[in-house]
Protein backbone atom coordinates (compact mmCIF):
# COMPACT_ATOMS: atom_id res chain seq x y z
CA UNK A 1 0.00 0.00 0.00
CA UNK A 2 1.41 3.37 -0.80
CA UNK A 3 0.75 6.59 1.08
CA UNK A 4 1.11 9.88 -0.73
CA UNK A 5 3.36 12.58 0.59
CA UNK A 6 1.41 15.30 2.33
CA UNK A 7 3.46 18.05 0.73
CA UNK A 8 2.39 16.82 -2.68
CA UNK A 9 5.91 16.74 -4.06
CA UNK A 10 5.56 13.15 -5.20
CA UNK A 11 2.22 11.57 -6.00
CA UNK A 12 2.12 7.90 -5.24
CA UNK A 13 -1.62 7.77 -5.26
CA UNK A 14 -4.66 9.82 -6.02
CA UNK A 15 -5.28 13.08 -4.23
CA UNK A 16 -7.61 16.03 -4.06
CA UNK A 17 -5.75 19.14 -5.08
CA UNK A 18 -6.92 22.48 -3.69
CA UNK A 19 -7.60 24.85 -6.58
CA UNK A 20 -9.10 27.46 -4.35
CA UNK A 21 -9.37 27.22 -0.59
CA UNK A 22 -12.43 28.03 1.46
CA UNK A 23 -12.43 30.41 4.42
CA UNK A 24 -11.23 27.80 6.89
CA UNK A 25 -10.73 24.30 5.55
CA UNK A 26 -9.47 22.17 8.38
CA UNK A 27 -8.52 18.52 8.54
CA UNK A 28 -10.27 17.09 11.57
CA UNK A 29 -10.68 13.76 13.30
CA UNK A 30 -12.41 12.46 16.40
CA UNK A 31 -9.21 10.60 17.33
CA UNK A 32 -8.09 12.68 20.28
CA UNK A 33 -4.50 13.37 21.26
CA UNK A 34 -5.77 13.41 24.85
CA UNK A 35 -3.55 16.38 25.44
CA UNK A 36 -5.86 18.88 27.16
CA UNK A 37 -3.98 17.96 30.32
CA UNK A 38 -0.76 19.08 28.61
CA UNK A 39 -2.09 22.30 27.10
CA UNK A 40 -3.21 21.00 23.72
CA UNK A 41 -6.69 21.76 22.40
CA UNK A 42 -9.65 19.40 22.37
CA UNK A 43 -9.79 20.20 18.62
CA UNK A 44 -11.72 17.84 16.35
CA UNK A 45 -14.93 18.41 14.40
CA UNK A 46 -17.33 20.87 16.00
CA UNK A 47 -20.55 19.55 14.48
CA UNK A 48 -19.96 15.98 15.57
CA UNK A 49 -23.39 14.67 14.45
CA UNK A 50 -22.74 15.93 10.91
CA UNK A 51 -19.23 14.47 10.98
CA UNK A 52 -20.58 11.09 12.04
CA UNK A 53 -23.28 11.25 9.39
CA UNK A 54 -20.43 11.35 6.88
CA UNK A 55 -18.73 8.41 8.57
CA UNK A 56 -21.94 6.38 8.49
CA UNK A 57 -22.64 7.24 4.85
CA UNK A 58 -19.25 5.88 3.83
CA UNK A 59 -19.06 2.99 6.25
CA UNK A 60 -19.66 0.24 3.73
CA UNK A 61 -16.97 1.40 1.33
CA UNK A 62 -13.77 0.72 3.25
CA UNK A 63 -13.48 -2.54 5.15
CA UNK A 64 -10.59 -1.09 7.12
CA UNK A 65 -12.69 1.85 8.31
CA UNK A 66 -13.60 0.32 11.65
CA UNK A 67 -9.97 0.25 12.73
CA UNK A 68 -9.35 3.87 11.97
CA UNK A 69 -10.79 7.18 13.08
CA UNK A 70 -11.05 8.94 9.74
CA UNK A 71 -9.67 12.38 8.97
CA UNK A 72 -12.20 14.47 7.04
CA UNK A 73 -12.34 18.09 5.95
CA UNK A 74 -14.30 20.62 8.01
CA UNK A 75 -15.44 23.60 5.95
CA UNK A 76 -16.60 26.91 7.44
CA UNK A 77 -18.35 29.85 5.77
CA UNK A 78 -17.10 29.05 2.26
CA UNK A 79 -15.81 25.85 0.76
CA UNK A 80 -12.87 24.92 -1.45
CA UNK A 81 -12.71 23.95 -5.10
CA UNK A 82 -10.91 20.63 -5.47
CA UNK A 83 -9.66 18.67 -8.46
CA UNK A 84 -9.03 14.96 -8.40
CA UNK A 85 -5.48 14.23 -9.50
CA UNK A 86 -3.79 10.95 -10.22
CA UNK A 87 -0.43 11.15 -11.92
CA UNK A 88 -0.33 8.81 -14.87
CA UNK A 89 -3.81 7.49 -14.12
CA UNK A 90 -6.43 7.71 -16.85
CA UNK A 91 -9.16 10.29 -16.51
CA UNK A 92 -12.35 8.80 -15.27
CA UNK A 93 -10.70 6.19 -13.07
CA UNK A 94 -12.79 5.84 -9.96
CA UNK A 95 -10.53 6.82 -7.09
CA UNK A 96 -12.80 6.66 -4.11
CA UNK A 97 -16.06 7.60 -2.57
CA UNK A 98 -16.94 10.91 -0.96
CA UNK A 99 -19.85 12.52 0.84
CA UNK A 100 -20.70 15.99 2.08
CA UNK A 101 -22.71 16.58 5.23
CA UNK A 102 -23.64 19.52 7.41
CA UNK A 103 -24.37 22.87 5.78
CA UNK A 104 -22.54 22.22 2.50
CA UNK A 105 -23.11 20.24 -0.66
CA UNK A 106 -20.88 19.25 -3.57
CA UNK A 107 -21.22 20.24 -7.20
CA UNK A 108 -19.59 18.09 -9.87
CA UNK A 109 -19.57 18.54 -13.61
CA UNK A 110 -22.94 16.87 -13.80
CA UNK A 111 -24.61 19.09 -11.25
CA UNK A 112 -25.20 19.22 -7.50
CA UNK A 113 -24.99 16.13 -5.34
CA UNK A 114 -27.55 15.84 -2.60
CA UNK A 115 -26.13 16.39 0.83
CA UNK A 116 -25.49 13.15 2.63
CA UNK A 117 -25.43 11.02 -0.52
CA UNK A 118 -22.07 9.38 -1.32
CA UNK A 119 -20.67 10.00 -4.78
CA UNK A 120 -17.75 8.47 -6.65
CA UNK A 121 -14.57 10.46 -6.94
CA UNK A 122 -13.03 10.12 -10.40
CA UNK A 123 -9.68 11.31 -11.69
CA UNK A 124 -10.23 14.60 -13.47
CA UNK A 125 -13.32 15.57 -11.47
CA UNK A 126 -13.66 19.14 -10.33
CA UNK A 127 -15.54 19.34 -7.03
CA UNK A 128 -16.97 22.65 -5.88
CA UNK A 129 -18.10 22.77 -2.26
CA UNK A 130 -20.93 25.21 -1.62
CA UNK A 131 -22.50 26.31 1.61
CA UNK A 132 -26.21 26.35 2.18
CA UNK A 133 -27.96 27.60 5.31
CA UNK A 134 -25.76 27.11 8.32
CA UNK A 135 -22.05 27.56 8.74
CA UNK A 136 -20.08 24.31 8.76
CA UNK A 137 -19.94 21.14 6.76
CA UNK A 138 -17.81 18.07 6.22
CA UNK A 139 -16.25 16.47 3.18
CA UNK A 140 -15.66 12.85 4.01
CA UNK A 141 -13.83 10.32 1.87
CA UNK A 142 -13.89 6.57 2.34
CA UNK A 143 -10.87 5.64 4.43
CA UNK A 144 -10.24 9.25 5.36
CA UNK A 145 -7.42 11.41 4.06
CA UNK A 146 -4.00 9.77 4.26
CA UNK A 147 -1.66 12.16 6.04
CA UNK A 148 1.30 11.77 8.37
CA UNK A 149 0.45 11.78 12.04
CA UNK A 150 1.84 14.13 14.67
CA UNK A 151 1.50 13.04 18.28
CA UNK A 152 -0.67 10.15 17.24
CA UNK A 153 -3.18 11.64 14.81
CA UNK A 154 -3.36 13.66 11.58
CA UNK A 155 -6.02 16.05 12.83
CA UNK A 156 -5.42 19.78 13.16
CA UNK A 157 -4.82 21.53 16.46
CA UNK A 158 -4.78 25.10 15.21
CA UNK A 159 -3.72 26.86 18.42
CA UNK A 160 -0.81 24.45 18.86
CA UNK A 161 0.05 24.59 15.17
CA UNK A 162 -0.22 20.85 14.77
CA UNK A 163 -1.07 19.13 11.44
CA UNK A 164 -3.44 18.39 9.60
CA UNK A 165 -1.33 19.70 6.91
CA UNK A 166 1.32 21.94 8.40
CA UNK A 167 -0.81 23.08 11.32
CA UNK A 168 -2.90 25.50 9.35
CA UNK A 169 -6.06 25.54 7.26
CA UNK A 170 -5.77 24.62 3.59
CA UNK A 171 -4.28 26.83 0.90
CA UNK A 172 -4.34 26.65 -2.89
CA UNK A 173 -1.92 24.01 -4.10
CA UNK A 174 -2.30 21.72 -1.09
CA UNK A 175 -2.91 18.08 -1.86
CA UNK A 176 -5.03 15.73 0.20
CA UNK A 177 -4.05 12.12 -0.50
CA UNK A 178 -6.76 9.51 -0.70
CA UNK A 179 -6.24 6.00 0.47
CA UNK A 180 -6.38 3.59 -2.44
CA UNK A 181 -9.51 1.51 -1.99
CA UNK A 182 -9.84 -2.10 -2.96
CA UNK A 183 -12.17 -2.67 -5.90
CA UNK A 184 -12.58 0.97 -6.84
CA UNK A 185 -9.63 1.20 -9.20
CA UNK A 186 -6.17 1.06 -7.68
CA UNK A 187 -3.62 3.61 -8.80
CA UNK A 188 -2.13 2.48 -12.09
CA UNK A 189 -5.10 0.41 -13.22
CA UNK A 190 -7.36 2.02 -15.74
CA UNK A 191 -11.08 1.85 -15.31
CA UNK A 192 -13.76 3.35 -17.45
CA UNK A 193 -16.34 5.52 -15.77
CA UNK A 194 -18.54 3.23 -13.77
CA UNK A 195 -22.25 3.51 -13.09
CA UNK A 196 -23.10 6.89 -11.73
CA UNK A 197 -25.23 6.79 -8.55
CA UNK A 198 -25.76 10.56 -8.37
CA UNK A 199 -26.17 13.46 -8.66
CA UNK A 200 -29.84 14.12 -8.28
CA UNK A 201 -30.45 17.39 -10.03
CA UNK A 202 -32.94 19.62 -8.35
CA UNK A 203 -32.83 17.77 -5.04
CA UNK A 204 -32.07 20.56 -2.60
CA UNK A 205 -29.81 20.03 0.40
CA UNK A 206 -31.38 19.49 3.78
CA UNK A 207 -31.29 22.38 6.20
CA UNK A 208 -29.23 21.97 9.32
CA UNK A 209 -31.17 22.38 12.52
CA UNK A 210 -30.50 25.65 14.27
CA UNK A 211 -29.67 25.30 17.95
CA UNK A 212 -32.78 24.18 19.71
CA UNK A 213 -35.29 25.08 17.06
CA UNK A 214 -36.11 27.42 14.25
CA UNK A 215 -35.32 30.63 16.08
CA UNK A 216 -37.46 33.48 14.93
CA UNK A 217 -37.53 36.80 16.71
CA UNK A 218 -36.97 35.19 20.09
CA UNK A 219 -33.71 33.68 18.98
CA UNK A 220 -32.80 30.02 18.82
CA UNK A 221 -33.05 28.13 22.07
CA UNK A 222 -29.65 27.24 23.47
CA UNK A 223 -30.16 24.79 26.32
CA UNK A 224 -27.86 25.27 29.28
CA UNK A 225 -26.99 23.89 32.66
CA UNK A 226 -25.78 26.09 35.53
CA UNK A 227 -22.07 26.83 35.49
CA UNK A 228 -19.78 26.52 38.53
CA UNK A 229 -19.76 30.28 39.13
CA UNK A 230 -23.40 31.11 38.40
CA UNK A 231 -24.05 31.71 42.07
CA UNK A 232 -21.60 34.60 42.09
CA UNK A 233 -23.88 36.65 39.87
CA UNK A 234 -26.53 38.85 41.39
CA UNK A 235 -30.11 37.80 40.71
CA UNK A 236 -30.47 40.76 38.39
CA UNK A 237 -27.42 39.69 36.43
CA UNK A 238 -28.65 36.11 36.21
CA UNK A 239 -32.00 37.32 34.87
CA UNK A 240 -30.22 39.49 32.32
CA UNK A 241 -28.05 36.57 31.21
CA UNK A 242 -31.04 34.30 30.67
CA UNK A 243 -33.44 36.95 29.45
CA UNK A 244 -31.34 38.64 26.79
CA UNK A 245 -31.63 37.63 23.16
CA UNK A 246 -27.96 37.45 22.23
CA UNK A 247 -26.54 38.01 18.75
CA UNK A 248 -23.67 35.97 17.37
CA UNK A 249 -20.79 38.34 16.73
CA UNK A 250 -18.58 38.15 13.63
CA UNK A 251 -15.65 37.81 16.03
CA UNK A 252 -16.55 34.18 16.53
CA UNK A 253 -14.50 31.14 15.58
CA UNK A 254 -13.54 27.69 16.80
CA UNK A 255 -12.08 29.18 19.96
CA UNK A 256 -15.44 30.60 20.92
CA UNK A 257 -18.68 32.26 19.92
CA UNK A 258 -18.78 35.85 21.10
CA UNK A 259 -22.21 37.19 21.86
CA UNK A 260 -23.34 40.77 21.47
CA UNK A 261 -26.18 42.36 23.36
CA UNK A 262 -26.82 44.44 26.46
CA UNK A 263 -23.76 43.61 28.58
CA UNK A 264 -24.62 41.85 31.81
CA UNK A 265 -24.26 44.47 34.53
CA UNK A 266 -21.36 43.41 36.61
CA UNK A 267 -20.35 43.83 40.18
CA UNK A 268 -16.82 44.79 41.14
CA UNK A 269 -15.99 41.24 42.10
CA UNK A 270 -16.64 40.07 38.54
CA UNK A 271 -13.38 41.76 37.69
CA UNK A 272 -11.53 39.75 40.31
CA UNK A 273 -8.67 37.71 38.98
CA UNK A 274 -9.97 34.16 39.19
CA UNK A 275 -7.41 31.37 39.27
CA UNK A 276 -7.51 29.65 35.91
CA UNK A 277 -9.34 26.36 35.84
CA UNK A 278 -10.19 23.75 33.21
CA UNK A 279 -12.74 24.68 30.54
CA UNK A 280 -15.17 22.37 28.78
CA UNK A 281 -16.83 22.47 25.36
CA UNK A 282 -19.84 24.75 25.72
CA UNK A 283 -18.61 26.65 28.77
CA UNK A 284 -20.27 30.08 28.79
CA UNK A 285 -17.79 32.58 30.17
CA UNK A 286 -18.70 36.03 31.41
CA UNK A 287 -15.70 38.34 31.10
CA UNK A 288 -15.61 41.67 32.95
CA UNK A 289 -17.05 43.46 29.89
CA UNK A 290 -20.33 41.59 30.37
CA UNK A 291 -20.52 39.99 26.90
CA UNK A 292 -20.66 36.19 27.13
CA UNK A 293 -18.40 33.84 25.18
CA UNK A 294 -19.37 30.23 24.44
CA UNK A 295 -16.21 28.14 24.22
CA UNK A 296 -15.57 25.87 21.24
CA UNK A 297 -13.18 23.03 20.42
CA UNK A 298 -10.09 25.24 20.03
CA UNK A 299 -10.54 26.98 23.38
CA UNK A 300 -7.61 27.13 25.78
CA UNK A 301 -7.62 24.20 28.20
CA UNK A 302 -7.54 26.63 31.13
CA UNK A 303 -9.49 29.86 31.59
CA UNK A 304 -9.78 32.55 34.22
CA UNK A 305 -13.14 34.13 33.43
CA UNK A 306 -16.34 33.40 35.35
CA UNK A 307 -18.03 30.23 34.12
CA UNK A 308 -21.71 31.05 34.44
CA UNK A 309 -23.41 28.45 32.27
CA UNK A 310 -22.58 25.31 30.31
CA UNK A 311 -24.33 24.56 27.03
CA UNK A 312 -26.04 21.20 27.28
CA UNK A 313 -26.72 18.18 25.11
CA UNK A 314 -26.23 18.37 21.38
CA UNK A 315 -26.63 22.14 21.42
CA UNK A 316 -22.84 22.29 21.86
CA UNK A 317 -22.70 20.86 18.35
CA UNK A 318 -25.64 22.79 16.91
CA UNK A 319 -23.92 26.03 17.90
CA UNK A 320 -21.28 25.33 15.28
CA UNK A 321 -23.89 26.13 12.61
CA UNK A 322 -24.81 29.57 13.91
CA UNK A 323 -23.79 32.45 11.69
CA UNK A 324 -22.90 35.99 12.71
CA UNK A 325 -26.10 37.97 13.08
CA UNK A 326 -28.15 35.01 14.20
CA UNK A 327 -29.66 35.19 17.65
CA UNK A 328 -30.02 32.87 20.57
CA UNK A 329 -31.22 32.83 24.12
CA UNK A 330 -30.23 30.58 26.97
CA UNK A 331 -32.86 28.16 28.20
CA UNK A 332 -32.33 26.18 31.41
CA UNK A 333 -32.39 22.43 30.88
CA UNK A 334 -31.86 19.30 32.90
CA UNK A 335 -28.91 16.96 32.70
CA UNK A 336 -31.07 13.97 32.01
CA UNK A 337 -32.55 15.57 28.94
CA UNK A 338 -29.08 16.71 27.86
CA UNK A 339 -27.56 13.23 27.93
CA UNK A 340 -30.46 11.81 25.91
CA UNK A 341 -30.34 14.69 23.45
CA UNK A 342 -26.65 14.14 22.85
CA UNK A 343 -27.11 10.40 22.36
CA UNK A 344 -29.92 10.92 19.89
CA UNK A 345 -28.03 13.50 17.87
CA UNK A 346 -24.84 11.45 17.67
CA UNK A 347 -26.76 8.43 16.44
CA UNK A 348 -28.45 10.49 13.78
CA UNK A 349 -31.91 10.27 15.28
CA UNK A 350 -34.57 12.86 14.68
CA UNK A 351 -34.45 15.65 17.21
CA UNK A 352 -37.56 15.69 19.41
CA UNK A 353 -39.02 18.90 20.77
CA UNK A 354 -36.88 19.03 23.90
CA UNK A 355 -37.35 21.54 26.71
Amino acid at each position, binding site marked *: MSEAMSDGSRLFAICLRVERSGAQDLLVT*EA*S*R*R*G*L*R*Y*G*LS*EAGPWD*VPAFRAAVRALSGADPRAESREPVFLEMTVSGPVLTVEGEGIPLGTVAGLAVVTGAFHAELQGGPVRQGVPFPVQVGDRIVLRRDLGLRGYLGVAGGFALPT*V*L*GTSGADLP*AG*LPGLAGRSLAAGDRLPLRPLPGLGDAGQSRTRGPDPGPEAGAGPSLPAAAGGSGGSGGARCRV*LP*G*PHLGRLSRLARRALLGTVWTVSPQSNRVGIRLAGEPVADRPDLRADL*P*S*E*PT*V*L*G*TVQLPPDGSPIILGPDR*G*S*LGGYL*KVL*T*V*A*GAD*VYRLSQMRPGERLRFVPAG*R*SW*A*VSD*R*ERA*LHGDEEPAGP
Partner: protein
Amino acid sequence: MSAGARGRLGAMPVTRTRWEGDRALRVSWGASDPEAPVPLAIAVRYAARLSGALLESFRDEPQVLDVVASLEAVTVLLTADAGRGGAIAGRVRRIARTLAETVQEEPSWAADAGFENGRGEVDRVGRLIRIPVRYGGVDGPDLADVAERSGRSEAAVVLLHTQRVYICFAVGFRPGMPFLGPLDEGLVARRLDRPRLEVPAGSVAVAGRQTGIYPVPSPGGWQLLGRTEVSLFDMSRPDASAACLVHPGDRVRFEADPEGAVLPA
Protein backbone atom coordinates in the same frame (compact mmCIF):
# COMPACT_ATOMS: atom_id res chain seq x y z
CA MET B 1 -10.06 14.55 62.30
CA SER B 2 -8.10 15.25 65.45
CA ALA B 3 -6.53 18.63 65.96
CA GLY B 4 -3.15 16.91 66.10
CA ALA B 5 -3.45 15.57 62.56
CA ARG B 6 -3.89 19.07 61.22
CA GLY B 7 -0.59 20.22 62.60
CA ARG B 8 0.24 23.55 61.12
CA LEU B 9 -1.51 22.81 57.85
CA GLY B 10 -4.72 24.60 58.60
CA ALA B 11 -8.19 23.55 57.57
CA MET B 12 -8.83 20.24 55.86
CA PRO B 13 -9.73 20.59 52.22
CA VAL B 14 -13.40 19.90 51.62
CA THR B 15 -14.05 18.59 48.16
CA ARG B 16 -17.11 19.05 45.96
CA THR B 17 -17.71 16.93 42.89
CA ARG B 18 -20.32 18.38 40.53
CA TRP B 19 -21.31 17.92 36.92
CA GLU B 20 -20.19 20.73 34.68
CA GLY B 21 -22.46 20.50 31.67
CA ASP B 22 -23.56 16.98 30.90
CA ARG B 23 -20.19 15.39 30.28
CA ALA B 24 -17.64 16.81 32.65
CA LEU B 25 -17.12 16.31 36.38
CA ARG B 26 -15.53 19.15 38.27
CA VAL B 27 -13.86 18.53 41.60
CA SER B 28 -13.24 21.73 43.53
CA TRP B 29 -12.03 22.24 47.06
CA GLY B 30 -12.30 24.86 49.70
CA ALA B 31 -11.70 25.15 53.38
CA SER B 32 -14.09 23.76 55.94
CA ASP B 33 -12.98 26.46 58.33
CA PRO B 34 -13.42 29.93 56.82
CA GLU B 35 -10.94 31.27 59.39
CA ALA B 36 -8.20 29.07 58.00
CA PRO B 37 -8.21 28.83 54.20
CA VAL B 38 -6.53 25.89 52.48
CA PRO B 39 -2.82 26.70 52.43
CA LEU B 40 -1.25 27.02 49.00
CA ALA B 41 1.10 24.16 49.77
CA ILE B 42 -1.88 21.88 50.39
CA ALA B 43 -3.84 23.05 47.37
CA VAL B 44 -0.87 22.54 45.08
CA ARG B 45 -0.26 19.07 46.40
CA TYR B 46 -3.91 18.10 46.31
CA ALA B 47 -4.41 19.25 42.72
CA ALA B 48 -1.35 17.31 41.62
CA ARG B 49 -2.27 14.13 43.44
CA LEU B 50 -5.92 14.19 42.50
CA SER B 51 -5.26 14.57 38.79
CA GLY B 52 -2.67 11.80 38.92
CA ALA B 53 -4.94 9.46 40.84
CA LEU B 54 -7.88 10.09 38.51
CA LEU B 55 -5.79 9.56 35.41
CA GLU B 56 -4.49 6.31 36.82
CA SER B 57 -7.92 5.11 37.88
CA PHE B 58 -9.50 5.90 34.51
CA ARG B 59 -6.56 4.88 32.34
CA ASP B 60 -8.56 2.16 30.61
CA GLU B 61 -11.97 3.78 30.83
CA PRO B 62 -13.12 4.56 27.28
CA GLN B 63 -15.68 7.14 28.45
CA VAL B 64 -13.02 9.39 29.99
CA LEU B 65 -11.43 11.74 27.47
CA ASP B 66 -9.05 13.65 29.73
CA VAL B 67 -8.33 14.88 33.25
CA VAL B 68 -7.25 18.51 33.48
CA ALA B 69 -5.70 19.96 36.63
CA SER B 70 -5.54 23.46 38.05
CA LEU B 71 -4.96 25.10 41.40
CA GLU B 72 -8.56 25.08 42.59
CA ALA B 73 -10.28 22.50 40.40
CA VAL B 74 -9.62 19.24 38.61
CA THR B 75 -12.02 18.33 35.82
CA VAL B 76 -12.71 14.93 34.33
CA LEU B 77 -13.90 15.37 30.75
CA LEU B 78 -15.97 12.55 29.30
CA THR B 79 -16.13 11.57 25.64
CA ALA B 80 -18.96 12.54 23.32
CA ASP B 81 -20.34 9.00 23.63
CA ALA B 82 -20.33 8.92 27.40
CA GLY B 83 -23.64 7.96 28.96
CA ARG B 84 -25.10 9.15 32.21
CA GLY B 85 -21.76 8.57 33.93
CA GLY B 86 -23.17 7.69 37.34
CA ALA B 87 -20.53 5.08 38.10
CA ILE B 88 -17.76 7.40 36.96
CA ALA B 89 -19.09 10.21 39.12
CA GLY B 90 -19.18 7.93 42.14
CA ARG B 91 -15.62 6.87 41.61
CA VAL B 92 -14.40 10.44 41.17
CA ARG B 93 -16.14 11.48 44.37
CA ARG B 94 -14.61 8.61 46.35
CA ILE B 95 -11.08 9.28 45.09
CA ALA B 96 -11.42 13.00 45.79
CA ARG B 97 -12.51 12.38 49.37
CA THR B 98 -9.93 9.72 50.11
CA LEU B 99 -7.09 11.89 48.86
CA ALA B 100 -8.30 14.84 50.93
CA GLU B 101 -7.91 12.72 54.04
CA THR B 102 -4.49 11.45 52.96
CA VAL B 103 -3.20 14.94 52.38
CA GLN B 104 -4.24 15.78 55.90
CA GLU B 105 -2.49 12.81 57.47
CA GLU B 106 0.95 13.60 56.21
CA PRO B 107 3.48 14.97 58.65
CA SER B 108 3.34 18.71 58.38
CA TRP B 109 6.88 19.14 57.12
CA ALA B 110 6.27 16.84 54.15
CA ALA B 111 3.25 18.82 53.05
CA ASP B 112 5.40 21.85 52.38
CA ALA B 113 6.71 21.37 48.85
CA GLY B 114 9.74 23.42 49.80
CA PHE B 115 11.46 20.48 51.47
CA GLU B 116 12.46 17.22 49.95
CA ASN B 117 11.52 14.06 51.73
CA GLY B 118 14.46 13.66 54.11
CA ARG B 119 13.91 9.91 54.39
CA GLY B 120 15.03 9.40 50.81
CA GLU B 121 11.62 8.10 49.80
CA VAL B 122 10.24 8.79 46.37
CA ASP B 123 7.22 11.03 46.66
CA ARG B 124 4.09 9.34 45.40
CA VAL B 125 3.23 12.42 43.40
CA GLY B 126 5.57 12.12 40.44
CA ARG B 127 8.97 12.30 38.85
CA LEU B 128 11.60 14.82 39.83
CA ILE B 129 12.73 16.92 36.88
CA ARG B 130 15.82 19.12 37.04
CA ILE B 131 15.81 22.23 34.91
CA PRO B 132 19.14 24.02 34.34
CA VAL B 133 18.68 27.78 34.14
CA ARG B 134 20.88 30.71 33.16
CA TYR B 135 19.86 33.31 35.70
CA GLY B 136 19.98 37.04 35.28
CA GLY B 137 21.54 39.21 32.64
CA VAL B 138 19.88 39.17 29.26
CA ASP B 139 18.27 35.84 30.15
CA GLY B 140 16.58 37.17 33.27
CA PRO B 141 15.71 40.85 32.73
CA ASP B 142 13.55 41.05 35.86
CA LEU B 143 15.98 39.44 38.33
CA ALA B 144 17.22 42.79 39.53
CA ASP B 145 13.70 44.08 40.10
CA VAL B 146 12.64 40.97 41.99
CA ALA B 147 15.79 41.23 44.13
CA GLU B 148 15.02 44.85 44.98
CA ARG B 149 11.39 44.14 45.84
CA SER B 150 12.45 41.18 47.94
CA GLY B 151 15.12 43.17 49.76
CA ARG B 152 17.83 40.70 48.82
CA SER B 153 20.77 40.30 46.50
CA GLU B 154 20.32 38.70 43.08
CA ALA B 155 22.36 35.72 44.26
CA ALA B 156 20.06 35.29 47.25
CA VAL B 157 17.01 35.36 44.99
CA VAL B 158 18.54 32.67 42.81
CA LEU B 159 19.20 30.62 45.92
CA LEU B 160 15.61 31.00 47.09
CA HIS B 161 14.34 29.97 43.66
CA THR B 162 16.62 26.94 43.33
CA GLN B 163 16.51 25.54 46.84
CA ARG B 164 12.87 24.49 46.63
CA VAL B 165 11.31 21.48 45.01
CA TYR B 166 8.13 22.68 43.34
CA ILE B 167 5.04 20.72 42.48
CA CYS B 168 3.46 21.07 39.06
CA PHE B 169 -0.24 21.61 39.63
CA ALA B 170 -1.28 22.62 36.14
CA VAL B 171 -0.09 22.58 32.52
CA GLY B 172 -1.74 24.86 30.01
CA PHE B 173 -2.01 28.07 27.95
CA ARG B 174 0.63 26.65 25.67
CA PRO B 175 1.44 22.98 25.11
CA GLY B 176 3.78 21.85 27.86
CA MET B 177 3.69 25.10 29.87
CA PRO B 178 4.03 24.08 33.54
CA PHE B 179 2.65 25.97 36.54
CA LEU B 180 4.63 25.29 39.69
CA GLY B 181 4.45 26.27 43.30
CA PRO B 182 4.61 27.35 45.94
CA LEU B 183 7.32 29.96 45.69
CA ASP B 184 9.28 30.86 48.82
CA GLU B 185 7.49 33.71 50.57
CA GLY B 186 10.72 35.65 50.65
CA LEU B 187 10.53 36.09 46.89
CA VAL B 188 8.42 39.07 46.00
CA ALA B 189 7.32 38.80 42.38
CA ARG B 190 4.43 40.44 40.63
CA ARG B 191 2.64 40.44 37.32
CA LEU B 192 3.80 43.20 35.03
CA ASP B 193 1.37 46.07 34.52
CA ARG B 194 1.91 45.71 30.82
CA PRO B 195 2.70 42.19 29.64
CA ARG B 196 5.63 41.80 27.27
CA LEU B 197 4.49 41.29 23.70
CA GLU B 198 6.89 38.42 23.34
CA VAL B 199 8.72 36.44 25.97
CA PRO B 200 11.57 34.24 24.66
CA ALA B 201 11.04 30.49 24.65
CA GLY B 202 12.46 28.82 27.75
CA SER B 203 12.02 31.87 29.96
CA VAL B 204 11.72 30.94 33.63
CA ALA B 205 9.23 33.24 35.29
CA VAL B 206 7.64 34.09 38.64
CA ALA B 207 4.49 35.88 39.75
CA GLY B 208 2.71 35.86 43.08
CA ARG B 209 3.59 32.54 44.66
CA GLN B 210 3.90 30.61 41.41
CA THR B 211 6.72 29.94 39.03
CA GLY B 212 6.62 28.65 35.50
CA ILE B 213 8.36 28.30 32.16
CA TYR B 214 7.27 29.67 28.78
CA PRO B 215 7.77 26.83 26.29
CA VAL B 216 7.49 28.93 23.13
CA PRO B 217 7.62 32.64 22.38
CA SER B 218 4.37 34.16 23.58
CA PRO B 219 3.01 37.26 25.29
CA GLY B 220 3.75 37.13 28.98
CA GLY B 221 3.06 39.11 32.11
CA TRP B 222 5.24 37.31 34.63
CA GLN B 223 8.68 38.45 35.82
CA LEU B 224 11.57 36.72 34.11
CA LEU B 225 14.41 35.38 36.26
CA GLY B 226 16.31 33.35 33.69
CA ARG B 227 16.16 31.04 30.75
CA THR B 228 16.53 27.34 30.04
CA GLU B 229 17.36 25.44 26.84
CA VAL B 230 15.33 22.42 27.90
CA SER B 231 12.46 21.57 25.55
CA LEU B 232 9.14 21.49 27.36
CA PHE B 233 7.13 20.03 24.51
CA ASP B 234 8.63 17.85 21.79
CA MET B 235 6.27 17.40 18.86
CA SER B 236 8.36 14.65 17.33
CA ARG B 237 7.35 12.19 20.06
CA PRO B 238 4.68 9.55 19.40
CA ASP B 239 2.02 11.02 21.66
CA ALA B 240 1.17 14.00 23.83
CA SER B 241 2.20 12.33 27.07
CA ALA B 242 5.67 11.59 25.76
CA ALA B 243 5.93 15.04 24.19
CA CYS B 244 5.27 16.91 27.42
CA LEU B 245 8.26 17.16 29.77
CA VAL B 246 6.58 18.28 32.99
CA HIS B 247 3.27 16.62 33.82
CA PRO B 248 0.83 17.74 36.48
CA GLY B 249 2.03 15.98 39.61
CA ASP B 250 5.69 16.02 38.70
CA ARG B 251 8.20 17.83 40.90
CA VAL B 252 10.60 20.37 39.48
CA ARG B 253 13.87 21.71 40.77
CA PHE B 254 15.72 24.55 39.08
CA GLU B 255 19.49 24.53 39.02
CA ALA B 256 21.69 27.52 38.32
CA ASP B 257 23.88 26.65 35.39
CA PRO B 258 26.06 29.32 33.90
CA GLU B 259 26.41 27.37 30.66
CA GLY B 260 22.71 26.66 30.34
CA ALA B 261 23.51 23.18 29.07
CA VAL B 262 21.15 20.27 29.66
CA LEU B 263 22.38 18.25 32.61
CA PRO B 264 22.63 14.48 32.38
CA ALA B 265 19.51 12.68 33.61
